[in-house]
């Protein structure tokens, strides 16, 4: 993609106009905008700015999305950031450097790059189409003299024989060869991998497709990072899916040395209450149903609790996943509500891996809060032993497990994988199978010998030095020219 080529394409698209007149004003403005986005220099600046932004987002702590959603949590996060970054925290907060990847300016940069890619692709389409399908076979003398890589040689044979041999040498090197003869000369054009030129469109447009995929996923998808189901329970997925998930069993296995070997959840998926699918989810093998996938994310302890009211009627009987950590002591903690009583009950388990003086093993601490947040009553409940608290009768039935799943719907992801494949194909075409082109002309000399010239274009983005040398040697060999003797002039083709 040379700057010169871009400029030419531009000139063709927007021929210079002497002065703007009223009616042409819009076209003029549009032309200027278009011109701005055809610049490869703009592409470089944007790429480097985005790289710098991504680097900043790597080096500076980024606010988690869950914290952003909650102003109070963000304030306390910012407090912590202040102690780490000092006065810079204010600057980073103001410039959105704590949230680079969701900031307005980062999106603007991405938007500009997208426009840049689209405009450049449109701009170059015609030119590349022409080079792939309609290349001139016969080039003028000036080309053979001034091309970046050129060579001239004399063959001791009639021009038709020389041309035939050059043709053969190029074909042997797996070039596609075209010839055009006139009275005293034969022009030859040969190329390889000509379709690789289209790789530039594949690789650039795949970036636009990936960005489109992320937008589609953002609009029509959802992601629930903490979907929790206790063993034996069934939980609604929500998000308008009509699905619910039941956990039959959670298993965690460990190697003898201690590290984890496997986490797996046996799941049953229900669609509007009807069982539609079941299977076991492992960390590297999710379960999906109708575009919604379930991934193993975490797990923990569940306390199966039963609550009876003063009349002995059961008002709650279910597993309470202790999925959070208490701030003091790091104990597993969970909660449930009693709508009839307008109360919330917190259940806290013993801290793991140590003897907990407050909550011994085999017990759960139960705290009953009124809706306003006032503690009504609290106490420890021993497994299998009913206990009266706040006028209710609590039983800690038994311990079991819950699984934490990540539930994802991302309708953009398939577009992203298609784009990824196109990108790899495009880049492989451009860099592993680059287009190679070479022109030759064989002219009759008065003494009956043939004047053979080779040349190829100066394409800075394809290293052609070695390839050109290689082809020159093949042609020489075919023409029976040995060594450097017959070379009258050479371009900058020496390594």
């Amino acid at each position, binding site marked *: 993609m040379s700057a010169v080529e871009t400029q030419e394409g531009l000139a063709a698209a927007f021929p210079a106009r002497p002065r703007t007149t009223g009616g042409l004003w819009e076209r003029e403005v549009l032309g200027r905008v278009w011109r701005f986005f055809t610049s490869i220099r703009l592409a470089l600046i944007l790429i*480097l700015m985005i790289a710098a932004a991504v680097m900043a987002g790597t080096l500076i702590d980024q606010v988690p999305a869950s914290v952003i959603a909650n102003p109070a949590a963000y304030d306390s996060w910012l407090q912590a950031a202040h102690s780490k970054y000092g006065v810079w925290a204010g600057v980073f907060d103001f410039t959105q450097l704590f949230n680079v990847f969701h900031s307005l300016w980062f999106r603007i940069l991405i938007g500009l790059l997208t426009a840049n890619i689209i405009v450049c692709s449109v701009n170059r389409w015609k030119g590349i189409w022409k080079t792939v399908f309609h290349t001139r076979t016969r080039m003028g003398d000036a080309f053979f003299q001034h091309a970046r890589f050129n060579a001239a040689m004399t063959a001791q044979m009639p021009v038709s024989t020389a041309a035939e041999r050059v043709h053969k040498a190029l074909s042997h090197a797996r070039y596609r060869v075209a010839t055009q003869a006139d009275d005293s000369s034969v022009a030859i054009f040969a190329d390889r991998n000509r379709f690789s030129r289209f790789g530039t469109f594949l690789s650039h447009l795949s970036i636009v497709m990936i960005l489109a995929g992320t937008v589609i996923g953002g609009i029509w998808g959802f992601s629930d990072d903490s979907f929790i189901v206790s063993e034996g329970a069934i939980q609604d997925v929500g998000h308008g899916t009509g699905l619910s998930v039941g956990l039959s069993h959670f298993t965690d296995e460990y190697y003898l040395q201690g590290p984890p070997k496997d986490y797996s959840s046996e799941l049953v998926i229900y669609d509007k209450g009807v069982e539609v699918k079941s299977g076991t989810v492992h960390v590297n093998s999710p379960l999906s149903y109708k575009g919604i996938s379930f991934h193993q994310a975490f797990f923990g302890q569940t306390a199966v609790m039963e609550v009876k009211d003063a009349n002995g009627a059961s008002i709650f009987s279910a597993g309470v996943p202790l999925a959070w950590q208490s701030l003091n002591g790091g104990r597993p903690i969970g909660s449930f509500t009693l709508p009839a009583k307008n109360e919330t009950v917190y259940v806290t388990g013993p801290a793991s891996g140590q003897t907990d003086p407050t909550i011994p093993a085999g017990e759960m601490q139960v705290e009953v809060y009124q809706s306003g947040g006032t503690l009504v009553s609290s106490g420890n409940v021993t497994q299998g032993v009913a206990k009266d608290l706040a006028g209710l009768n609590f039983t800690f039935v038994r311990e079991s497990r819950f699984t934490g799943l990540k539930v994802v719907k991302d309708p953009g992801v398939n577009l992203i994988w298609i784009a990824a494949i196109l990108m790899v194909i495009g880049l492989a075409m451009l*860099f592993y199978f680059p287009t190679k082109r070479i022109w030759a002309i064989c002219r009759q000399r008065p003494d009956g010998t043939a004047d053979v010239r080779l040349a190829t274009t100066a394409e800075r983005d394809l290293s052609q030095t070695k390839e050109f040398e290689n082809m020159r040697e093949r042609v020489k060999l075919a023409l029976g020219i040995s060594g450097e003797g017959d070379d009258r002039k050479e371009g900058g083709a020496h390594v």
Partner: protein
Amino acid sequence: MYELSQYAFVAAFAALALAVCLYVVNVVGARGLSRMSLAGGGSMSTSSLGPTLDAAGRYATILTVNSFAFLSACLVFRAIASGHGPFSNMYEFSLAFSWGALVLYLYFEVQYRLRSLALLVLPVALGMMAYATTVPSDIEPLVPALQNNTLLTVHVAVAILAYGAFALAFGAAVLYLFQRRDTIRWLPRAVVLDEIGHKAVMVGFPAMALTIILGALWADIAWGTYWSWDPKETASLVTWLIYGGYLHARVIRGWRGSRSASLLILGFGATMFTYYGNLFFGGLHSYG
């Protein structure tokens, strides 16, 4: 198998260390030679030194090939012993990185018949091996997240290809900056160094794209999200962007030559940051 792998590693390390010394003798000696012939004197020592230097160069190449063979054996034995590719810890990945740098270096030495790149590229490979000796080499069983052998093996294979190529481009770029006006007789010409840097990026850039894509595919399967702005992900994206910038810079007037070469050096900085980034940051990639 594990012991065999360790022995092969020691052999590869020793061979490479010796090779680097001989390359230094070869290249720096050539420098001395070019100075002497410039001065016009010392014809006696010049004639006796020349063949010695050539021999040093030849042995350096032979040793590098040996180091490469030993390192290959080391990786194969280890893969047999562990039952998976070299992706489970920094030890394995460091060896793989060295292997990538050696492959790419040898390919370019043969292609361009020049040894001066060894001065910059092979110390990187040697440094990686030296680093590997400082981290635990035990084979540990795979944690659940890493139990995706095929995908992760290919992911690492293309990653080391990319990293090796970027190391080579780095070497060529540094030499280019010294040689930009073709003033140093014992170094390859600037135009050749420029081409080597570009060729290396042509190998590495698509490989890096595939590395990121396969990483995203794995993340999507294991974590349910193809991209989570994890430090390792972002660092690899920065690396890819810098080389993407280089490929564009190379065709812009005013950016050819030295500025492009500087981008290659910056890009290799980002590569090393990508590689070691997880030592400073947490994230999903904290095992290597």
